[in-house]
């Protein structure tokens, strides 16, 4: 009797969940793949002859430049996040427990504030007549305002500012799990600080590092509004190019192909992440 009663609920839940995901996740993704092998059409966006032109265009040296530049911006962002975040997470894990919670809360608060508004605040600071230039000039460090707004540097600062918490949180998680006994053992066996760091700490925090990279690198390539506001509307990120293809230039196949490349890059990173986790699992014990 029980099975009769439980069937409708179970069925309803499964149908709802499956329906939602098939309709709003699987279908749209298939559509993007489909669009990427179709032909650009000025009237209907895409039309039939199937071909790989969009992908060929992607590897055209001219567009490759855009991708490489975007990759450069994202990599710089990720590196800076890592450089700031790694010691930060380490230091955070050493703080007494009860205070850790408060500090993490403080880390999340900016993330809860509208990201556009925060990017805009950076503009106030970095502008030629902005606060940073004014401050530096009033203390006499510089006598000409520096040009900071509308540069690549400004975009990287913006991306770091928006994405830093995403680097710190996974790093904090691995530092929090760092096994003190291993560190002590390493010390007891006569390993110096550097050796311990290189042979124990780095490998053990590697999954966190990779998770952080995953959460920073790819979003850093897609956040088109940051170059729009801080980079003088240049196409510094793949995100700008994709957005332009869909909302300006109407070259959907190309935009779709570009976004598939982004997804593939993400998949690659996830694969690396899994691999590193498995290795730690084997070596760590």
């Amino acid at each position, binding site marked *: 009797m029980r099975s009769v009663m439980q069937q409708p609920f179970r069925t309803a839940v499964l149908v709802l969940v499956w329906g939602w995901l098939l309709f709003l996740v699987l279908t749209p993704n298939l559509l993007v793949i489909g669009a990427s092998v179709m032909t650009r059409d000025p009237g209907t966006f895409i039309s039939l002859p199937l071909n790989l032109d969009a992908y060929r265009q992607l590897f055209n040296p001219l567009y490759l*430049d855009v991708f490489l530049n975007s990759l450069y911006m994202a990599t710089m962002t990720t590196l800076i996040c890592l450089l700031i975040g790694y010691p930060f997470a380490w230091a955070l894990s050493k703080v007494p427990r009860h205070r850790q919670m408060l500090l993490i809360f403080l880390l999340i608060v900016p993330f809860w504030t509208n990201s556009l508004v925060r990017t805009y605040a950076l503009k106030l600071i970095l502008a030629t007549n902005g606060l940073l230039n004014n401050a530096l000039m009033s203390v006499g460090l510089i006598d000409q305002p520096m040009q900071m*707004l509308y540069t690549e540097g400004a975009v990287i600062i913006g991306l770091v500012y928006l994405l830093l918490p995403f680097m710190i949180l996974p790093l904090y998680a691995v530092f929090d799990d760092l096994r003190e006994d291993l560190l002590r053992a390493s010390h007891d066996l006569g390993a110096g600080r550097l050796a311990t760091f290189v042979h124990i700490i780095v490998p053990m925090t590697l999954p966190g590092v990779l998770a952080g990279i995953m959460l920073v690198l790819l979003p850093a390539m897609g956040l088109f509004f940051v170059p729009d506001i801080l980079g*003088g*509307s*240049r196409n510094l990120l793949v995100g700008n190019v994709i957005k*332009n293809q869909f909302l*300006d*230039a*109407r*070259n959907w196949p190309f935009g779709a192909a570009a976004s598939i490349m982004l997804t593939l890059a993400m998949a690659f990173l996830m694969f690396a992440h899994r691999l590193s986790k498995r290795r730690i699992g084997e070596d760590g014990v």
Partner: protein
Amino acid sequence: MKKLALAGILAVGLTGCGSDDPQVLNLYNWSEYMPQEVLERFTEETGIQVVYTTYDSNEAMYARLKLLDESAAYDLAVPSTYYVSKMRQEDLLMPIDRSKIEGFDNLDPELVNLDIDPDNQYSVPYLWGTTGLAVDTSDVDGEVTAWADLWDERFEGRVMLTNDMREVFHVGLRVLGYSGNSTDPQEIEEAYEKLSELMPSVRTFNSDAPRMPYLEGEADVGMIWNGEAVMGKDTMPSLEYVYPEEGIIAWLDSFVIPKNAPNPEAAHQFINFVLQPEISALISEDIGYATPNLAGRDVLDDAVANDRSSYPSATDMINAEFQEDIGDDALQIYAKYWEMLKSGR
């Protein structure tokens, strides 16, 4: 599909504080291209609420209209010359019922019945203007008289360009002595080469409010729309509008009603409202562009009517070139180089 229906029912049930006002006009226009006062007075007079959404390039406007074609999102848009003909030919527009537009005969005969829309079946001119040089005279020593001066080394990192593909290439083409409406791939490529030499000097692209980078001290020299220059001068008297030797870019922006507009009646009412001499004059005085409404020009404040920035003299228009429709093939070539240009470091 079932899920969609479910979500739909859910959504309908949940809405309520959405847009269920009886009379709404969805106006899709350039940023800062209509004084707030005009919208308020229109609402006061007719009871129709205006939802004002903005774009910063013809391309974005066109792509969005095409995207939302079926879903009937906008009642009125304001494309530039060359997009009027493009949209008309692609059957995206609704014919305008002239009997509902009283002030049409007041329009400058030179600005109606153009090739872009013979007999103005689909468009009514709103404003016309020019794109010329902006110079912040407090920061720039010496004369700036030509587009070519932008390539001068002393302006490195201080140049502002509009975020408008056609306009920027127009400048490149004119500097090389070609027509700004060129469709020749060779010439377009040369213009790209020329412009990419300028890129290291370019500080920013801006078509939302091209005056702002000058006012904010980020740029000293570059492109600007005449109306923006007039507005900018109010706050920064050192901002000068210069007619470059190679000739300015001239354009005409017109009201059009998208084919599937939900409220064409309100759209007609709005066009009619704007064409009143007093309102046309108010718009021109407030945002600095030239009104094609001759009756409006008559009641214009003298200071504005005599402002060479808003209303150029015949000598200012020497070498001036109107933007024309260049066809989708040429547009694709422009688009490719534009992407590359904006990706340059």
